């Protein structure tokens, strides 16, 4: 069954059709929310909220367009709102204290180092890359996440950001150039991975 057919059925109240769409798109939505928020619980809440809002607005969705960019746009907007909220920081702090009491207590960060050592080298490089991306502006971050972390096409990224494909090209160019500058100046260890 095509995506358009599933959407049509979901509009008519078919729960199974909506669940199929959710299964198809929830992983990229969750990943984008996690990259933007840095917290799995917050990301899950955001995706849940995004899908509820999408379901409510489904009647107005143009079925001739792909669903994923629209869902990612809703997710991204909600994540941005959540990032600004006071509650998120309080919740993140509470979870950190509950989940990592010894990490908080250990001022020398030995536990953190141990956790980092447990990651594979490629995971560590990707994590460091994420830290570098987070030094960019929100607009630059978003285009890097869509094009390089989620591997979206230019057309999909354009649909998500509601901009022309040409704008995606120029934003990508600008964001990559800035990222390279940041990596060069502040993340020398990452430079080796990116120069290979």
């Amino acid at each position: 069954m095509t995506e358009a057919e599933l959407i049509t059925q979901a509009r008519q109240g078919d729960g199974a059709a909506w669940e199929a769409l959710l299964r198809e798109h929830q992983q990229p939505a969750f990943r984008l929310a996690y990259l933007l928020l840095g917290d799995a619980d917050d990301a899950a809440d955001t995706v849940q909220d995004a899908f509820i809002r999408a379901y409510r607005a489904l009647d107005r969705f143009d079925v001739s367009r792909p669903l994923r960019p629209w869902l990612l746009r809703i997710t991204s907007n909600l994540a941005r709102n959540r990032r600004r909220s006071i509650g998120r920081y309080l919740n993140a702090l509470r979870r950190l204290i509950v989940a990592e009491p010894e990490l908080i207590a250990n001022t020398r960060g030995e536990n953190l180092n141990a956790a980092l050592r447990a990651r594979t080298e490629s995971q560590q490089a990707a994590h460091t890359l994420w830290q570098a991306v987070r030094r960019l502006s929100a607009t630059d971050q978003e285009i890097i996440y869509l094009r390089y972390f989620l591997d979206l096409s230019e057309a999909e990224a354009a649909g998500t950001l509601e901009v022309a494909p040409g704008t995606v090209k120029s934003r990508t160019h600008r964001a990559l150039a800035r990222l390279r500058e940041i990596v060069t100046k502040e993340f020398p260890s990452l430079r080796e991975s990116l120069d290979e």
Partner: protein
Amino acid sequence: MSAELERFGQRVRAVAGGFPYPPMPVIRPVRSSRPDRSRTQLAWGAGIALSLVLALLAVPQVRAALIEFIQIGAVRLNLIAPTPTLIPPTPTGALAPTVVPSPTPTPLASVLDLSGETTLADARQRANFTVRLPAYPADLGEPDHVFVQEQGASMVVLVWLDPDDPTHVRMSLHQIPRESWALDKMGFSKTGITKEGLANAGLAIIQFAAINGQTAAWVEGPHLLIARNGDLEQKRLVTGNTLIWLAENGVTYRLETELALDEAVKIAESLQ
């Protein structure tokens, strides 16, 4: 894009492919209501926002920053200065010159945070007046959310979402019968700053318009919406544009939108 930057992009993609995403929690296929956890967080957020506004209003200097109010039908608008304002000392010298913190950066409660969500049919049944819908723009359709709040009589709030971005409210329309809201009775005297001075400073702009012959107020910029019913008081800081008018049927309408005045008037005049 230069070949060198393109190669850099390819390496970024390859490295990003190894990102250690956490396991994805189970996303429940909820279709009609929000998850409890989000609702709790939302309630806490709204509570914090309301507390901050109330705390700010408890400060005499901030109260004084509410420089003027305009009453149209059942709604009173309190215009506020959104930037720090220097308050001169009182004649008794009790207050030293103080920079007044503006309430503008306070987290805002959305119109979607209202309680009492229901269907349009139910709202029509409960309201003691005819609930009207705009016929303009032609593609608007029925509201995405309908709220009814019992405050002496039923106040109806209709909300339309942006079809391209359902996280964004396209416009909301309050329909408030005469008996519904008892308004804020706090008396705020002028501080000597005039409405014209405020408008010249670009802090808030208000002008008057006519909706089917009835006077309407148009507000751009931040203002505080206050309603009181017995001990219950509601405050919401509004940053969008708002058109308020009292119609011939005794119902006060309050249209909150990002549209310009002429478009808002067209919508208002199309109510039927």
